[in-house]
């Protein structure tokens, strides 16, 4: 076809590249090929941190302000190494960076995710026999009880858990001037009428859904689709009474907005130590479950200084160091010295103390969500949260 104005053809630059379908598909294929480069089959790592000799500076991957500065500087002075801290704010963020093969020497891994992390090959084994202070760890944690009802999983993770760190139980905190009828059960969240508009649930799938399931008398480890739907409905049932879904912190307690809310016992201790009216706050562990979960010192598979990492874990377990750690973070740590220090620390608030024997009961622990059920839990959680 002859153009109406032949001269106009010259206005089109001869070098202009036209995006063709083939080009587009080629580009897309390139991107997909690039994305596929990141995939590797995963299996538990066979590496082992077994030397108690520092072999370089320590790259510590931790929550902010989670290990006392004095303890870190003590480690630096004692072993002549430097501690480089990198902070994360959620377990998911921590896992994402380990998946990206960041070379951290120590990370703090939540109990309900360790099995997955082990199976994904993110952690390396730790030789507990090489440590001088491992006997400090309570016997119940030599094979950690983090996978209730799944002994095989507990045995599988045992060599990968360097040592337990802060261990928390989830209870309920309430303002005594607003809420008067508490019964020592998670049912109080659903039954309390005095706190309408000021009940805050945690914006946390694992804890809030499991709290709801135990409230309904359902074992989280055995929850079916129907059970999860029931739990979602149960949460929806009290939406009108909720002030909101808050972060897993004490912000809403400290500003007085929450009158009834889940809280970690350790966090409550810190809150009561800082608020002007500590007597106005009550806290209860609940008869259904303590919903324990623990952070653990682990050595990532990508660690470049496993000797320093093992030395650090052993150093934290040292009784004098452990005492400083528990006094600082206000959480129990399941070691002999850690528990003794915690009991002493909470003397003023006896309801924050609990019997160590509870650790050994599987029902008292948060249950890790099985891999093949995760999407099901996520959908139920979305139903519960979104209106």
């Amino acid at each position, binding site marked *: 076809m002859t153009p109406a104005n032949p001269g106009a053809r010259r206005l089109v630059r001869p070098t202009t590249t036209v995006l063709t379908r083939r080009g587009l598909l080629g580009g897309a294929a390139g*991107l*997909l090929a690039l994305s596929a480069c990141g995939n590797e089959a*995963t299996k538990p790592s066979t590496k082992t941190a077994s030397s108690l000799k520092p072999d370089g500076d320590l790259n510590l991957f931790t929550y902010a302000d989670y290990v006392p500065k004095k303890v870190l500087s003590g480690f630096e002075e004692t072993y002549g190494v430097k501690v480089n801290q990198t902070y994360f704010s959620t377990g998911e963020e921590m896992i994402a960076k380990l998946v990206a093969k960041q070379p951290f020497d120590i990370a703090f891994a939540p109990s309900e995710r360790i099995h997955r992390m082990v199976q994904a090959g993110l952690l390396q084994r730790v030789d507990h026999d090489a440590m001088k202070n491992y006997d400090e760890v309570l016997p119940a944690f030599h094979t950690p009880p983090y996978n209730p009802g799944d002994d095989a999983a507990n045995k599988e993770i045992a060599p990968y858990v360097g040592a337990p760190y802060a261990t928390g139980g989830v209870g309920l905190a309430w303002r005594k001037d607003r809420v008067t009828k508490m019964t020592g059960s998670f049912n109080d969240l659903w039954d309390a009428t005095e706190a309408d508009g000021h009940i805050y649930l945690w914006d946390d799938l694992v804890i809030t859904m499991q709290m709801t399931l135990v409230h309904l008398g359902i074992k989280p480890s055995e929850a079916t689709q129907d059970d999860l739907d029931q739990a979602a409905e149960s949460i929806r049932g009290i*939406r009108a009474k909720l002030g909101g*879904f808050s*972060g897993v912190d004490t912000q809403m307690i400290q500003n007085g*907005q929450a009158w009834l809310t889940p809280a970690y016992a350790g966090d409550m201790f810190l809150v009561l130590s800082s608020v002007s009216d500590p007597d106005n706050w009550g806290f209860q562990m609940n008869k259904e479950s303590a919903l324990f979960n623990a952070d653990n010192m682990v050595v990532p598979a990508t660690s470049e200084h496993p000797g320093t990492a093992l030395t650090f874990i052993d150093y934290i377990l040292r009784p004098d160091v452990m005492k400083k750690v528990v006094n600082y973070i206000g959480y129990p740590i399941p070691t002999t010295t850690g528990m003794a220090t915690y009991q002493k620390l909470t003397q003023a608030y006896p309801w924050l103390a609990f019997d160590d024997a509870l650790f050994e009961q599987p029902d008292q622990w948060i249950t890790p969500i099985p*891999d093949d059920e995760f999407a099901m839990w996520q959908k139920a959680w979305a139903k519960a949260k979104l209106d």
Partner: protein
Amino acid sequence: MSARTLPWRLAALPGTAWLVLLYVVPLGLLVAAAFSQPDIVGHPVFGAWTRSNFDAVFSSMYGRVLWRTLWVSALTSVACLIVGYCVAYTISTYGGRFKTLLVAAVLLPWLVDYLIRIYAWLQLLSDDGPFVRLAHQLNVLPEHTSLLGTQTAVIIGLVYNFLPFAVLPIFTALEGIDRSQIEAARDLFATPSGAFRFVVLPATLAGCVSAFMIVFLLTFGDFATAQVLGGPGQIMLGQVIQDEFTGVGLLPAGAATTCQVLVVVILLLGGLSWASSRLERRFGS
């Protein structure tokens, strides 16, 4: 390719490479993740393709969240536009030699971390905070009624945070007005409001569209404000994505929802850009 244009084309290479590496490739990975199955820790397994991540995106629950997010973004943008126009007009007209200083003052809160500013509003809007106490005393807010956890609280927080993004483009548009046009209007017996209506406002409409667009897009992707200041009925799309990425840990689901946001944003951006260029052509000097 002529020898004359070759150097210019080569000069464009670093910028192009930058864009491809840091924008096109991540975008492609995001789309690939949206169609991937999650692995054991919730990360995408590229190569194991599925469309199931989009099931939730097209559910009625997500639809309601999307609608709410659009609504809150629109309200915030309109509020920012009104307040921002007043602030920009005042600075431009009466700022004199302090104009730069006053514009800097508008930006001053941005020197403080975003989250800290939201947490400051958490204290201000809580039941024991000054706003609620004053509102109760003035009977503006019924006794035992909270402000925190309401849509009003979310919009207050969003307007506060994104107001500077409305002020700046409007201020720039106001500064670009040829003052002789206003004088001419007044010489032709236009009242001050008439001069504003027929000269100033049309000349700044494109700036207003830019301001609306920037605030809208920022609000649409925001998650922290509704998370901290909102209640269970104020969940926005940004929160859902944040939850999927960092809370629940299902990256492919988060990627699918992000793609949804991307499509909505592209459509909005296209519409608003079109409106902006039309206004520019119609009223631009």
